[in-house]
Structure formats: C-alpha cells, structure tokens
C-alpha cells in the first residue's frame, strides 16, 4: 500500500500548523518524522491516519496503482498509536483484543493473536492484570500491542517514547527494529529525539514550523 500526501495545509484558530506538505510513503520500513515540539508532526500524522481532515490538499492511499477509498475498510488497514493511549477499564488481554472484537473475529483467533502481540511487547505475563494498573512504559507497550494485533499495513506511532523511562524506550525501539526486520509493514513515527531517529529510521523526514523538508534529509538504505 502507498500513501501520498499532496500539498496539505492545516490551521487552528488562525494559526498555520501545516503548510504545503507533500510526500510519498511508498516503501515498507520505518519513516521517522523529526522536529521540535509543536512543529505540526502530530497533526500531520493524524491527517495521514485519516483521523483529521486537512484544510487544503489531499491524502490518498493506493494499491497496485489503484486509488483506495478513505472508508472504514481502509481505516481498518492502518492504525495510529497516540503518545497517550486511552486504556479501556478492563484487563490487558481484553484491551489488546478490542480491535479484533470490533471486527467480529472468532474467539480462538482473537486469543491466538492477542497472545502473539503480548509476547511481542513483553506483556504476556500481565495479560490478566487490570490495564490501568500498568506503568506508563508498559501502557505505551500495551498501546503498540493493541495496534500490532491487527497486523496493520501502515502503523503510525506518535512520539511512542515521549513520556517513558529508558528501559521501556529501549524495548519499544527494539520492537520497531523487529518490525523493520520483518519488513511486512510500513511504520511512520514521529520523534523530537535526533538520536532515536538515527537508531530507528530507514528514512528520515524533518518538519520545521509546519513545513515538511523531505528529500534533502532523506536517508535510504
């Protein structure tokens, strides 16, 4: 699947957040969008993930050169993990099962996928624990498990390590590395940490005051 962003602009209360941003995400691997806090990275990600609409420009998904409609079916092939995830007031396992339950999957398949996702983020031992008792780092890993359980074709991660300790940051970066090795999906993540971008990215984009500076900073492997 390919994501193309063309000339998007967004303003809030008269303040320009994004200006004429264009880029084509066309390869599996990890794209890292870097930039200081408040530069518009999260808004860009939310627009790409179809959670918000741009004031100008277009976000289009395509597959085998055929455009995909921005409907529920497409939204279910992509997933966004926010810096602060909303934790449902139930167990860790049921939190991870949620996106599968809303898709009406069978109980057996849900259980298998949940176990696999929890093992991937290292939370398998806490599957029966109440999710709201997890630490902030574990909560972030839960958020990633809840997204990965869907095997999304594009996974958006908005500042996945913004408010967690070094140990959990290391675990999450290693998970992103594992996804990269598997090469099955595209990860588009934001960070304000240059070193983290260097460690995790296949390709780096820089955003400065709402302007996307793609190509000059592009690193390809």
């Amino acid at each position, binding site marked *: 699947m390919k994501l193309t962003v063309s000339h998007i602009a967004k303003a809030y209360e008269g303040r320009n957040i994004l200006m004429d941003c264009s880029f084509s995400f066309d390869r599996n691997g990890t794209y890292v969008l870097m930039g200081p806090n408040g530069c518009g990275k999260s808004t860009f990600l939310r627009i790409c993930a179809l*959670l918000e609409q741009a004031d100008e420009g277009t976000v289009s998904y395509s597959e085998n050169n055929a455009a995909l409609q921005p409907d529920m079916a497409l939204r279910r092939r992509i997933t966004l*993990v926010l810096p602060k*995830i*909303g934790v*449902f007031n139930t167990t860790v396992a049921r939190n991870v099962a*949620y996106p599968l339950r*809303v898709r009406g999957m069978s109980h057996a398949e849900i259980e298998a996928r949940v176990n696999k996702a929890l093992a991937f983020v290292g939370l398998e031992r806490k599957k029966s624990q109440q999710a709201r008792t997890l630490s902030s780092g574990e909560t972030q890993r839960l958020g990633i498990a809840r997204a990965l359980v869907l095997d999304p074709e594009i996974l958006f991660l908005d500042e996945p390590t913004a408010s967690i300790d070094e140990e959990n940051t290391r675990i999450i970066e290693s998970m992103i590395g594992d996804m990269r090795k598997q090469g099955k999906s595209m990860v588009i993540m934001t960070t304000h940490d240059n070193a983290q971008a260097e460690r995790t990215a296949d390709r780096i984009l820089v955003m400065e005051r709402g302007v996307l500076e793609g190509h000059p900073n592009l690193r390809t492997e």
Partner: protein
Amino acid sequence: MNSLFQGFVQAIDLILHLDPVLFGIILLSLKVSGFALLIATVFGLPAGALLGLKRFPGRDLAISTANTFMGLPPVVVGLFVYLLLSRKGPLGFLGLLYSPSAMIIAQTILATPIVIALCQSAIVNVDPLIRQAARTLGATPRQVTVTIIAEARYGILSAIIAAFGRVMAEVGAILIVGGNIAGYTRVMTTTIALETDKGNFELALALGIILLAISFSINFILHAVQKKGTSILT
C-alpha cells in the same frame, strides 16, 4: 430507645413468621419501584447517553432541566399525576387513579430525571482518550458509542442505584395517587406513614428496618456487580 429496640425485635419476628400481609406489602413495593425503575432506565439511559455524547441545539437546556427535575418534590409529582389521572383529568378515562399503575407512573416521573442526569454525567466524564482510542482501532461510530457507554458502566449503575433509592424511599407521590388501599396499593412507605399516624411505632419501625435492609441488600448486590462487571466490547 425502647421503641427502637422493640421495633427491631418485631421486624425480626415479622420476617421469621413470614407474615403474608407484610410480604404482600414488600412485594408490591418492590414491584412498583422495580417497574418504575425499569421504565426510567429504558427511557433515561438513551436520553442520558444522547446528552452525554452528542452536541445539539437545546442540549444545555435539556441537561439543566434534568438536573432541576432530580429534586422534584414527590408531593408535587403526586399532585400532577393525580390531576392527570383524576376522573376529570386528560387521562381520567384510563381509570388508573388509586391503582399500582398510577404509583408506577408517579415513581417513573421521579426516577427518570435522576437516571438521565447521572447517566449523562457518567458518560461525559469518560476520558476523551477512550473515544480517540476506539476510533484509531477501527471501531465504527456505533461501536465507539457502545464503548463509551461501556466505559461509563459504573457511573450508569450508580445512577440506577440512586434512582432506586429515591423511589423506594418515596411516600408523598404514591400516597396521593395510590390512596394507600390495604391489599391493593399499600406499600412499605405508606404503611409506615399510616402506622405512625396510628401511634403504632413498633410496627412502623419494624417496616422501616425491613425497608432499610432491602435497600442495603440491593445496593450491596449492585455494588458487587459493579466491582466484578466487565463491559460488552472491552
């Protein structure tokens, strides 16, 4: 103090001897309040959810109205229902005055604003991140709504408990529209009022203790459910 003790002893005596009249009164109380609560929940929960989830013109006015009506004086409701159902009233042709149905109508009017206002409050207080999480995880708009309501389940249950407490303890409205007819519309609270008037304090106290015990048991069970309960989608 003596009356209190005697009331307690008599309460136990009445329960142990399975007094049929007493059980008839208790059963009618539970039936009337239970039906009223059921109707109030059927209408109040969707209304509270709508007010909690959607933004529309007149929403603030509707919330303020529900909040105000939470404190409706039972005698005023009793009077209003009486005037509606009395022979010359607009619904007089139904012949419901001085019947359990009239009592259910009065109690429903008392319980519904409580269910609406407290459900709205429970739903509006659900963390906005929950809605966002549900959307990002591919829930349809309907599933997002169900998820938010499910997250508010403890608050919703509290709303229902509060409404039940209100109608079980209420006496003014059902006395006016039910008439306290022995074996037909006499419930626990109206019996307590009657026995107190007659100076029969022990029996009144005994009934009061039983009423309290029933309320406590129901609250205890609901609280246990609240602690254990899981939601539909999550």
